């Protein structure tokens, strides 16, 4: 079951430039930053109330985020919903025939995560996350 909107992902050319606006001008505190090799990004989460903004800087020119930046420029990339049982959620999605990118949860900046295919929501890339502390 979906609990809340965990974050939206925004592709930026560089985290440093992104910080200048989202952290320094808007005043959103930086929660964490990490390199996620398998997604080809340096990523950061900034806090806005009980929601976060994720900035994504591509570091792998062959990766999906780099291709997104090249094709569409900086901007909104995905929306992530929080669940407390990502395995159950994925099982339900499979039963309902929803197109998935990830068949199994993997580790991302927001915890255990998986992506659904953007076709499933008419062009919106949806991520699910089960935070792990």
């Amino acid at each position, binding site marked *: 079951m979906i609990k809340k909107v965990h974050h*939206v992902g925004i592709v930026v050319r560089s985290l440093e430039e992104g910080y200048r606006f989202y952290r320094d*001008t808007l*005043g959103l505190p930086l929660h964490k930053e990490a390199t996620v090799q398998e997604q080809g990004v340096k990523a950061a989460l900034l806090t*806005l109330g009980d*929601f976060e903004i994720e900035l994504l800087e591509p570091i792998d020119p062959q990766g999906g985020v780099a291709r997104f930046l090249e094709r569409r420029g*900086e*901007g909104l990339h995905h*929306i992530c919903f929080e669940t407390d049982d990502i395995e159950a959620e994925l099982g339900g999605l499979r039963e*309902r025939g929803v197109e998935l990118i990830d068949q199994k949860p993997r580790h991302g900046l927001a915890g255990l995560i998986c992506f659904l295919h953007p076709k499933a929501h008419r062009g919106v890339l949806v991520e699910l996350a089960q935070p792990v502390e």
Partner: protein
Amino acid sequence: MTLLKQLDHVVVAVRELDEAANAWEHNLGLKAEHAPQPAASGVRLASLPAGNAFVQLAQPLTADHPLAAFMDERGEGMFSLSIEVDDIEATVAELRGCGVQVSDSEAGMLEGTRIARISRQSAHGVEIHLLERR
């Protein structure tokens, strides 16, 4: 600057509202609050509550609507983030003081709201709407 309160909603531009609403409900269990209503401003809207915020599906009814122009360029997808503030005039003034391009505030699509738009150039390609609920 600590004037931003929380995410209010995310606008998703769609060409066919009923199909889109069915997919979000079928896949994720996010159900529209009310039957979709045509709004005075030339869009049909469906609000899907998701805990702390809602997803707002928006189908433009005229070809010259900004959402239609957006989809002509980029296709269906996420259009904007609406972030709630306590005092929209103060927030606009403070952001302008930091060199951010922000529109004057105006009545929002949702009743009882005022919004102001931060320019996409300032926000790294993201359409951010500041929103005050009155």
